[in-house]
């Protein structure tokens, strides 16, 4: 359980980072919470680790009326406790609270988790559900990539060549909307057997206008499912959330692993959808009344 030999670089500027990343087999190191175990188990053997922790300007959370920009060096724990970010997009803190354990949240980064593109990660689904995007720095300049184009497969993104994700942007929660996030794990802090994040938006009359959901550990890449049809036009307080859960179960295509069968995950998709929608709708009602 010792990594294969690798070179280590910790440049102080983004330009230098990109220059080193131009070398064959170079890989970005941010929080290291996924990468280092892979190295130790020799499941990954990059020629060079490019540590970006000395690059200035990547550690900020910026919350504006439009949304929240999370820099590449923002630790999960910082995002979890960022009150401004939580006001603009409450899903961020709610989901981050489910990321692993405090020790991992203290080192691991939100953007690193997204760039790792693990379908068991919370923040990939949150990026999708909020319809967010990432900003990628390349030698040719910066580029924004929407979540749909970014996630290609499990542990696989559309980014290639010398490139580093410098931030992720999560749009603000729309008006008259509420969110919730819940997951079920075998042990507290483990990767979820199944997780669910939802956004409910009401019309001016307090009736359901839109319901969207994204799941964790379900499917190979993040997907957003539109569940509006099950409950459209129903009063938020008495909508048939179970019907939305039932619809969700028909839309997902989970896998079986040693911890859960596909059928069990589908069951949980229904249960978590219903449970999260109840609390998201309550939040939406509160925000609509306000």
């Amino acid at each position, binding site marked *: 359980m010792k*990594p*294969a*030999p690798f070179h280590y670089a910790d440049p102080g500027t983004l330009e230098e980072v990109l220059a080193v990343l131009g070398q064959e087999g170079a890989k970005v190191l941010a929080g290291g919470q996924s990468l280092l175990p892979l190295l130790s188990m*020799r499941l990954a053997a990059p020629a060079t680790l490019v540590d970006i922790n000395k690059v200035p300007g990547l550690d900020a959370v910026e919350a504006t009326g439009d949304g929240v920009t999370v820099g590449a060096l923002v630790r999960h724990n910082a995002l979890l406790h960022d009150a401004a970010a939580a006001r603009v997009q409450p899903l961020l803190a709610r989901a981050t609270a489910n990321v692993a354990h405090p020790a991992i949240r203290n080192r691991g980064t939100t953007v690193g988790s997204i760039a790792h593109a693990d379908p068991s990660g919370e923040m990939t689904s949150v990026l999708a559900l909020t319809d967010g995007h990432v900003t990628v720095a390349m030698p040719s300049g910066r580029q924004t990539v929407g979540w749909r184009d970014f996630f290609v497969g499990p542990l696989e993104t559309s980014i290639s060549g010398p490139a580093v994700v410098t931030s992720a942007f999560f749009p603000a929660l729309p008006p008259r909307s509420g969110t919730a996030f819940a997951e079920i794990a075998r042990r507290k802090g483990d990767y979820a057997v199944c997780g669910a994040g939802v956004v409910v938006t009401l019309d001016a009359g307090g009736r359901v206008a839109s319901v969207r959901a994204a799941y964790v550990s379900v499917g190979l890449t993040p997907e957003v499912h539109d569940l509006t049809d099950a409950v459209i036009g129903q009063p938020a307080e008495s909508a048939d959330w179970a019907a939305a859960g039932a619809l969700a179960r028909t839309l997902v295509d989970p896998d079986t692993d040693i911890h859960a069968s596909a059928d*069990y995950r589908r069951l949980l998709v229904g249960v978590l959808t219903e449970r999260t929608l109840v609390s998201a709708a309550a939040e939406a009602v509160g925000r609509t009344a306000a």
Partner: protein
Amino acid sequence: MTTKLFGEPVRRREDARLIVGKGRYLDDIGHSALAAAFVRSPHAHARITDIDVEGALDVEGLVAIYTYEDLHGAMAEPLPVLIPHPQLTAARTGHPLANGEVNHVGEAVVMVVATDRYIAEDAAERIVVSYEELPVVVGVDAAREAAHAVHDEIPDNVGARHHQETGDVEPALAASPHTLSFTQYIERSASMPMEGKGVHARWDADDRSLRVYSSTQASTSVRAAIAAKLELSLEKVEVVAPDVGGGFGVKIVHPWPEELLVPMAAIALGQEVKWSEDRREHFISSAHERQQRQDVTVGYDDDGRITALDVHVWHDHGAYTPYGIIVPIITATQLVGPYVIPVYRVIVESVYTNTVIVTPYRGAGRPQACYAMERTMDRIADALDLDRAVVRERNLIQPSQFPYDQHLTFQDGRPVIYDSGDYPGLLDKLRALVDWSSVEDLRAQAAARGKLLGIGMALYVEGTGPGPYEGGHVQVLGSGKVLVATGLTSQGQGHETSFAQIVASELGVPIEDVEVTTGDTRRFPYAVGTFASRAAVMSGNAIALAARGVREKALRIAADVLEVDPGDLEIDEGLVQVKGVPGTSIPLRTVAVLSNPLRYAFDEAAKQATQFTTHDDTRPPVAEGDAPGLEHRDYYSPIRSTFASGAHAAVVEIDTQTWEIDVVKYAVVHDCGNVVNPMIVEGQVHGGVAQGVAGALYERMAYDKDGQLQNASFMDFLMPYASEVPDIDIDHQQTPSPLNPLGIKGAGEAGVIPGTAAIASAIEDAVGRRIAAMPISPTELYDLMRNDDTELTEAHRRRSGTGAMA
């Protein structure tokens, strides 16, 4: 008197050192040592056709590569069958490095030694071993079916057929008013100490002597094994167990291949060599336990009293049998628990599979035994519509029946005779502690919240403290320091505290003056090891006897000096004094000085014992039959094991939407005789319960059909966190053992034993469906609940009248 510490909750003296990182574990030793790494088999069953080391040779820092071809003499022979038994008719062990065939994923094939572990792994990665794959046997059922053989010459895969009976079971069953039969399964888990195994060896070429540090539970026997295998004289080998980060059974097995290969390389290379097991290695090349299939037939009367019990167990022992059939024997003999079983027959077929070896893991066959017996009790209660506690109560051995002979032969080759106990007392305390009669109210309250609630209980009797012996050495120095040594090892049990309490109490000295050393063959070369809840019973009593010997000698010497009768003296706070005459005293440290007549005054205190200071010239300085020094060595060797007992109850709540299982209450009543340190005993119970809950709800070894372990990491092997372990309510009962001077019984394993049985019972009570395979996870419970073929309990039919899914 502050020195009477026996029975007091003294804080563990070792904890401060261990918690702040001042422990000295295996990997803390020998920073400049060469490092060993292993090429291990990726196949569960294969012939080795070629080993090509060429690619590794140009790795800078490589020192040596060893394959089976490099093993000579005794090293080239199979590893020992540590515990032979006449019924172990087809024993097989591996070699230190695979000899042409591998029988499980993880078996060591090549050892690489390099300047550090990174480089050793780099080189190991470049060694190409070619294999011809052979058919793979995984699981007890595949082994029973024997479509393929693990070892060619054992076509039925049966290594041992262990059989015991106390009467003629078939007529007894035929004559029983009722009988029932069932089959159930229990899965594999493992010890999983936080520190894996590890070995460090240093060869002194000038002295031609070897010092080995090993993270072991049996340093004296590791020493003997190394001496035998490396063909060294015993006095040239010393083995030390440093701080050991947990054992739970896996480190009692020895010699592990690495315990021989690392010293072999150290001698050959003339340099220190170290191997520190990593977690993946621990999963695939150490040991597991627990998988069994159990077929039970029980006869009983209208009141639920058992008339006959017939049990057939298939026990998966993995690829080899280095530890003999100890685990099957324990299952067979501890199965009867606290009950009167008029006629009992047990057959355990111990079978080979292409998986990691099976050797004792805390509980060692008892959790399986308890699961068989206690689930039998549950089935009888269900069939007769009786309270599960009542059925148990009616079958209990009564306090008046001790000593109670179960007419079985235990793992130590000695009769299973329960020395003492009060099993009805345990059951009464348990019912009160868990409020057994309130379950229907709790069930209704839970139902109102959409939850299914159930309760279960399980009782056990645990044979602890088997022989053959342990020893203790106690020595008082002229400084007043009291050195205590015993040969068995410590893996976190708190021996530095509990053994010191015993000596402080027996000798009358402050505990601060007592220093305890365990597991160091330089200090105490005769020992057996730490296993089977035996350290307190065996070494505790041996140390007490040694301390009594020191006390007697101290009183004799002091009586001489003070010119009184030894019977008039007492020792307290390190002072020998005349009872009732304050001021007429002599410090114990002075007695120690005087005990060793001297020519040379090497320090101030020594002057008192030199030849011109002492004046009695009528006797030789050291009397005939006496010895210099205030020290004593003694041994404790029991006639047979002592039997501890206990009763656990679990209350579970099950979410009917997600089928998550929550243990909301866990109650323990525990009887280990006299208690040296109740805080340590409670800690042992807590740890045991954590592993019991783990085995019931979380842990399993997920082998696929090819013999690949799919969850060989802490990410996927679900050892519970503190967040998964319930709060534990404990009540104590003390029925002293009449077998040993201190009246104590073992406590180390008790907590783990009833977990699976009690939790299975509670889940079954909650869902009304038969639970016949453990552990159980939410996804499996979901499958069970929606499967129309799942057997419903009679209680469920009575409760609901329908049998519909709750």
